[in-house]
């Protein structure tokens, strides 16, 4: 199994070993969720029920990518969730250490970087000294001391003790550097420049084009689609043939709409992440439940924004946004609704990854079961959940079924020869509409933390 050059090696032992090892990775995930559950308690009861655990452990997107398409995401998500729970427990150094570990496991976790950075800066580095004093004497689960924190934080002025701040910054830098050192040293000692260049060109392949060969359901999928549609409507031709062939290629040229470069995507992503900075800086200490919720919400928003506007995003990245959001499903109806949406749309957009006959049957059954299960679970947690989902949102989800049947029929019809990319295009654009809608609602929610939308009575 481990012999070099043994491409396409298959044996029963290999299959059993790999499948079992992925299954075993669910154990750390379960442990991390239990750990988070203990510390996410508010004053007025638990916000994390057993059914929520099923939302993550049995998440169809996670199962499709992890157990079928085959990756080891559960282990990394478990380390991430441990990192989040340590951050909530005010043990910031351990949290940063775990975050660096997971970042060195998969660099996509950089999506969360800005959140962890500002959260730790605000609550650890530039933390008011008074919190350190009160934290040492309090129960770290944050139960029952919200009123005292409120009083203290409103009365005591923000005083920065610069020597403490420098010490804390130094500690953070040392932890980060040590983790990266352990991770990179074996490669860098064989030639700093060449190895670093090789690593970065493998890690961040900018030559692969704006969209992956199966378009991820982000804004650029809509952008490509609109470009093609306008191109046909306005009758302009150009060198765009390869874009609709669904092949990974070099810089895509858009004809009608402006061409997108990696720099453009970076700028747009950073623009959308700016509200996060304000939100994280404005939070109170993690003694308050709202802070914990805002933190998890913000990491989910950061992942979703980077997914929507990033360069060459793979569809698997939708998991980065949907898994942390599942942790909030019992907190409020709003979070339940968007988590419900994102789980289903994310799993649907992952369908093109698995195309053999058996996998087709399994993935459809799994998504259907999960959709009904999560609907029932959230209905049992939240009042009026079914009426909270608006009619067009329900229509969007229900239309998935006839559209998917239409795609299957399309694949078996003669037109398929001429337009082989059409099913993938349709799935991507339809999911992108849903994901964009979720992103927009999450954006307004984040922004509403510091701007009051007086006109809207409903929690948006």
């Amino acid at each position, binding site marked *: 199994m481990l012999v070099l050059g043994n491409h396409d090696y298959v044996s029963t032992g290999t299959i059993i070993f790999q499948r079992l090892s992925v299954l075993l990775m669910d154990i750390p995930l379960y442990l991390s969720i239990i750990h988070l559950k203990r510390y996410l308690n508010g004053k007025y009861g638990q916000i994390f029920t057993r059914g929520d655990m099923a939302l993550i452990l049995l998440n169809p997107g996670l199962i499709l990518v992890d157990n079928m398409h085959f990756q080891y995401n559960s282990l990394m998500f478990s380390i991430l969730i441990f990192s989040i729970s340590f951050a909530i427990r005010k043990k910031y150094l351990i949290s940063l250490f775990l975050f660096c570990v997971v970042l060195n496991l998969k660099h996509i976790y950089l999506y969360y970087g800005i959140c962890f950075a500002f959260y730790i800066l605000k609550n650890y580095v530039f933390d008011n000294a008074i919190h350190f004093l009160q934290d040492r004497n309090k129960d770290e689960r944050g139960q029952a001391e919200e009123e005292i924190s409120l009083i203290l934080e409103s009365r005591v002025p923000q005083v920065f003790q610069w020597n403490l701040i420098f010490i804390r910054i130094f500690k953070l830098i040392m932890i980060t550097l040590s983790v990266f050192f352990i991770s990179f040293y074996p490669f860098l000692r064989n030639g700093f420049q060449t190895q670093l260049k090789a690593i970065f060109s493998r890690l961040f392949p900018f030559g692969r084009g704006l969209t992956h060969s199966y378009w991820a359901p982000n804004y650029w999928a809509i952008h490509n689609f609109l470009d093609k549609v306008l191109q046909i409507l306005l009758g302009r031709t150009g060198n765009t043939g390869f874009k609709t062939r669904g092949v990974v290629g070099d810089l895509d040229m858009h004809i009608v709409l402006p061409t997108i470069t990696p720099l453009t995507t970076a700028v747009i992503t950073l623009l959308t992440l700016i509200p996060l900075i304000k939100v994280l800086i404005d939070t109170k200490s993690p003694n308050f439940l709202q802070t914990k919720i805002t933190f998890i919400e913000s990491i989910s928003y950061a992942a979703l924004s980077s997914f929507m506007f990033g360069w060459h995003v793979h569809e698997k990245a939708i998991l980065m946004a949907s898994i942390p959001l599942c942790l909030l499903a019992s907190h409020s109806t709003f979070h339940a609704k968007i988590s419900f949406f994102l789980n289903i749309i994310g799993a649907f957009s992952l369908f093109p990854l698995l195309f053999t006959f058996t996998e087709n049957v*399994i993935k459809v059954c799994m998504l259907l079961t999960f959709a009904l299960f999560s609907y029932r679970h959230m209905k049992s947690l939240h*009042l009026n959940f079914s009426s909270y989902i608006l009619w067009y949102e329900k229509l969007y989800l229900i239309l998935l079924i006839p559209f998917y049947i239409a795609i299957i029929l399309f694949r078996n019809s003669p037109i398929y020869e001429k337009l082989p990319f059409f099913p993938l295009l349709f799935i991507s654009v339809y999911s992108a509409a849903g994901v964009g809608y979720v992103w927009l609602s999450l954006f307004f929610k984040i922004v509403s933390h510091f701007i009051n939308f007086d006109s809207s009575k409903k929690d948006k």
Partner: protein
Amino acid sequence: MIEKLKPPKWYLGVIISILVGITLRICLGTNPYSGESSPPLYGDYEAQRHWMEITSNLPVSEWYQNSTSNDLLYWGLDYPPLTAYHSFIMGKIFSIVDDGDFMRLYTSRGYETEFTKMVMRASVIVSDLLLLFPSLYLVTKIDFTHSTENDNFQEDVNQKKKGKKNEKEKEKEKNKLHKNKQKNILIWNLMLLQPSLLLIDHVHFQYNSIGLSLIIFAYYLACQDKWSISLVCFYLGCFYKQMNLYYAIPFAIYYLTQLIKKKKYRVLFLSFPFISICCISITFLPWLLTSADSLKQVINRIFPFERLIYEDKLANFWCLISPIIDFRNDFSIQITKLFSLLATLLFSAPSNYNLARHGGQLRFKFALLNTSLAFFLFSFQVHEKSILIPAMIATLFIQDKELSIYSFWFILTSAFSLFPLIQREHSELAYISAVGIFATAYWLIAWNQIKITNLTKKLLLVNSLIIILAHGLIYIQITPNYPDIGELIFHSIIGLNFGLVYIFFSYKQFTISSNLIKNNEGSENTDYFKKLK
């Protein structure tokens, strides 16, 4: 006014349970079936496919006869006619697959593609949906008080005496009813996850669920006083697979005693003989019409009398005692048949006598379990897969408050006993999944809420651990002189467990509290699982 959270509708839970069952079965079906990619004979999957081929292409008179087109040595039909009719229907439906190549006579032997595998797996799932799911659902609706202490029986009697109830109590009762429905759906799910049935039907590939669910229908209908339909279902079950005759003695005794006790002589002496004649004649009609010889041939195929007392290693008494007294090799077939007949009757007698003497639905269930277990341990030509028969009755015991943990023990052990079979076709992943899911589900739903002592829990864990460690014995060869001794030790441990189960459940049957017998025979409401979480 505080708005109360309305619980979701009950049918949503039913739909989700069905979908979960379907998804799980499809996922298990991706594993290799019996005899996958192993010419020349393949395995049980090929046998089923071959029967479909034979029955859909040849006329009825040739199904059980040896001929050039029907070579009985290559998976000849050896189940009763209902299996043949079922294969006929399936064969006709599948003859449109691949332009008929799938079912073409003789040339379709060993036909294996991804699509046809999924099609065959789907046929088992459909038969499960149509028969197993409803039958187990009906069973969960019977609420029995099975513990020796009468929990809520007195309370319910008082409740019924009260008469008029006010608004609040009506609301309370409605909530209680709803909670009971939820609990029933959970228990239904747990029953559907029974690992041995999943492993044999959906991985190893057979159609046991049809016969077994017909028996469960018969049991349910007997408990609901619908005797004629119950008898019909029982006959259908036995005419599907002759293994279901393991249940025959308790059914016969229960029918006789209950009908005599309830003075339903018309049913007993008119309907029953009429139904028997109808069922037998309709099922065997094609062969009755041809000749006595063809009927004889069918009977010979169903009950082959010239086979040995056991084939492969299994947790059967005769196999496990073979290091000491080797019945297979040292005695003639007639003597072994006599021994096994006497032993089987001897060990099923106490339970059936108890049933005949006292009667009652609860005793009926016990007698079914004990008799089928005795048959498994002592009967002639038992196969590993026959453990499904006692295991099916044990799943009916899962909803019982006191005996739930012991039925869990038995079902788990029966699943463990199937490991050598599953290991031979390289489906260990399916095995781990099925057993793991059942154990986890049981732990989540029932473990903390059932009144069992810590000692029982520890014993169960230690026992399971020993068996799990013993799995390794299948793989290693201890001494070259006796290459199969590892498997024999494994089966001995399991056989010991089965013996203990038999003794325990017999004991429980004899010590059923007399209170229950005097009163109702068991349709009281109970309040298991006080916390629903």
